[in-house]
């Protein structure tokens, strides 16, 4: 066990706070250690710090980071039992060569299993497969009284669905059993298409998403007018053996090879290089070089996690950091979606690489973000004057359309905005008060949003 005082932020590098950070092995976690940390400032678990805002920081309190635990793969049942501190990167390096893939992969491999459940993360396959929590069979939860409890959706449905997407505020997940997806190769067969504007994109995704396991669009948030929302749409599936060798005969020798490439990381102290001009030029280039329509074979990293190749890419936003704003609005709220894209494009903020995706059904998590509709994700440099006003304006439009905001990305919401977007908030609060009456689990986000 290692303890130190440290200033923490989320991946967006905004709103720092200082906490006692405890690194420990899962076995060292017990009622006594928990009591030692207990103060009125509470405890929160932190994974790899990839939540963008403040859910995994706890000013003046304790932040616990679990060391990666064991990975036990059961090929017969296609499940893996894994320590909550294990990252998807480590997990994939173990399971991909053995013919399995994670059921849901977000845009980065650098999230832990515990974080994946607590944020009920989603990926490009949400329309087909749902969110991460839908693929978890059971987990072990360390409760506020220091007791470890095995939980399944049947054993205690309330606690289960308050913990899936519950931002770590019901306890510390220490281990989970997750259903995996069998794969024949480590590549994906991907259809890449250029789409000239937002309306064409929405039409294209509505018509074609069900044909593919994975589907996502990268939207240019700088273009306006007739090119508003021009995009590159990628849709794909895991390539089977025949598809792989048809394209790359030599890859047949090792069809499950998984060697994620790594470029040099961004050094500390770089200023914000993602100015509007830079973003505009990049987006232009990236749109132009995309094919009108083409099938290709892509690696896992190339298709799912391109940014993982660049270590510390968040430093590209400079000292002030950035906000990742993710919203979902119902399918019928196309006008709201269009008005938001237009407002951001005209606002002069340089939003780099926005992502649009269609969500499928909800998982059942009381605070889980995905709900049927369009989800749009924007990166916005945080140091810009007037950004607060823009976000407040977007917030209101999202709520008016019956939408909501993703807690794992949130860094600017108010209690009213979360209450407006999550109709089951009171139900969740009731479970939280049942399992943690004295508020042992606490984060900066929980304090900011009254999640206690």
């Amino acid at each position, binding site marked *: 066990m290692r303890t130190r*005082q440290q*200033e923490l932020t989320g991946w*967006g590098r*905004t*709103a*720092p*706070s*200082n*906490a006692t950070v405890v690194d420990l092995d899962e076995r060292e976690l017990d009622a006594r250690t928990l009591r030692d940390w207990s103060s009125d*400032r509470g405890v929160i678990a932190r994974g790899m710090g990839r939540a963008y*805002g*403040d859910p995994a920081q*706890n*000013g*003046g*309190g304790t932040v616990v980071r679990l060391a990666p635990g064991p990975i036990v793969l059961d090929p017969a049942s296609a499940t893996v039992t894994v320590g909550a501190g294990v990252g998807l990167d480590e997990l994939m390096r173990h399971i991909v060569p053995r013919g399995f893939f994670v059921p849901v992969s977000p845009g980065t491999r650098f999230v832990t299993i515990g974080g994946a459940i607590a944020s009920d993360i989603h990926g490009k396959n949400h329309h087909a497969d749902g969110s991460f929590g839908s693929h978890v069979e059971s987990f072990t939860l360390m409760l506020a009284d220091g007791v470890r409890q095995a939980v399944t959706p049947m054993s205690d449905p309330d606690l289960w669905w308050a913990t899936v997407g519950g931002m770590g505020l019901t306890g510390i997940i220490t281990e989970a059993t997750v259903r995996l997806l069998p794969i024949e190769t480590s590549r994906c067969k991907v259809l890449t298409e250029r789409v000239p504007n937002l309306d064409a994109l929405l039409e294209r995704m509505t018509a074609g998403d069900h044909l593919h396991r994975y589907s996502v669009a990268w939207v240019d948030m700088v273009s306006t007018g007739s090119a508003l929302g021009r995009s590159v749409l990628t849709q794909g599936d895991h390539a089977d053996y025949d598809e792989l060798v048809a394209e790359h005969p030599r890859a047949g020798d090792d069809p499950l090879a998984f060697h994620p490439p790594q470029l040099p990381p961004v050094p500390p102290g770089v200023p914000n290089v993602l100015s509007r001009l830079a973003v505009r030029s990049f987006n232009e280039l990236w749109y132009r070089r995309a094919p009108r329509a083409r099938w290709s074979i892509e690696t896992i990293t190339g298709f799912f996690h391109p940014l993982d190749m660049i270590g510390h890419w968040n430093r590209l936003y400079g*000292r*002030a*950091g950035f*906000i990742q704003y993710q919203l979902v609005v119902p399918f019928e709220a196309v006008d709201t979606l269009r008005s938001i894209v237009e407002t951001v494009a005209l606002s002069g903020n340089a939003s780099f690489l926005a992502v649009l995706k269609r969500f499928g059904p909800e998982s059942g998590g009381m605070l889980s973000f995905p709900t049927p509709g369009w989800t749009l994700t924007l990166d916005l440099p*945080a*140091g810009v*004057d007037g*950004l*607060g006003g823009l*976000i*407040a304006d977007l*917030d209101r439009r999202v709520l008016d359309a019956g939408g909501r905001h993703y807690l794992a990305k949130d*860094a*600017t*919401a*108010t209690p*009213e905005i979360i209450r407006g977007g999550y109709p089951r908030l009171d139900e969740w609060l009731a479970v939280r008060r049942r399992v943690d009456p004295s508020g042992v689990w606490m984060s*900066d986000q929980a*304090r*900011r949003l009254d999640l206690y």
Partner: protein
Amino acid sequence: MNNAVKQPQTVLVLGGTSDIGRAIVSALVSPALRQVILAVRHPGEVDVDSMTFGNADIVAVAFDAKDVSSHEALVADLADRFGDLDVVVQAFGQLGAAGLDDPVAAAELAQVNYVGAVSTGLAVAGRLRAQGHGTLVVLSSVAGVRTRASNFVYGSTKAGQDAFATGLGHALHGSGAKVMTVRPGFVRSAMTTGLDDAPFAVDPADVAEAVARGLRRGSAVVWAPGVLKIVFGLLRYAPDMVWRKLDR
């Protein structure tokens, strides 16, 4: 807790009748702002119902800058009642009479402007450290950068307060708590009523805007107007004879 665009939820103004203090709160209004605490000598005389700071709740609480033994308990009590203090503005202070002639009045001024600033500064710093975040905004003055004959007692109290604040900022480095020292020039406010404008005079709203911008950027020192940083950078080295001539 501040959000990612540095909008605070709870703001405490020590010296809540100060024009600049209230202007700062106005500049910090956002949908995130929930509570404004005005710490004043006579809470009963502050009509909070007639004030608006966005949708924030406003309360006035009793505070005496000279009663140094009460400051720690006051801050602890406010934290109990209102939770984390995101921004605390040290806005109290008096101009006092210029003075070669009144040692007692001069010492009183030092009590309020300097001793009170030290005492509240440490009490607030203790709370900000305990919560692991938050900013103490200290309203210093350019009068303390180089003291002049016409208000050297006031200037000296501000010099002391300023030195304390910047030093406190260094002492808090790495704790999550921050200090922002604000050096306004001549501000047209209740405190300066009846005085002629000095060069580069500003309104409380101008100071407040500079403070809000400084908070967004995480500045350690803010000048209002910004040009005073350069002006005083030069004036600091002006020969004494020239400096005395410049004083009105």
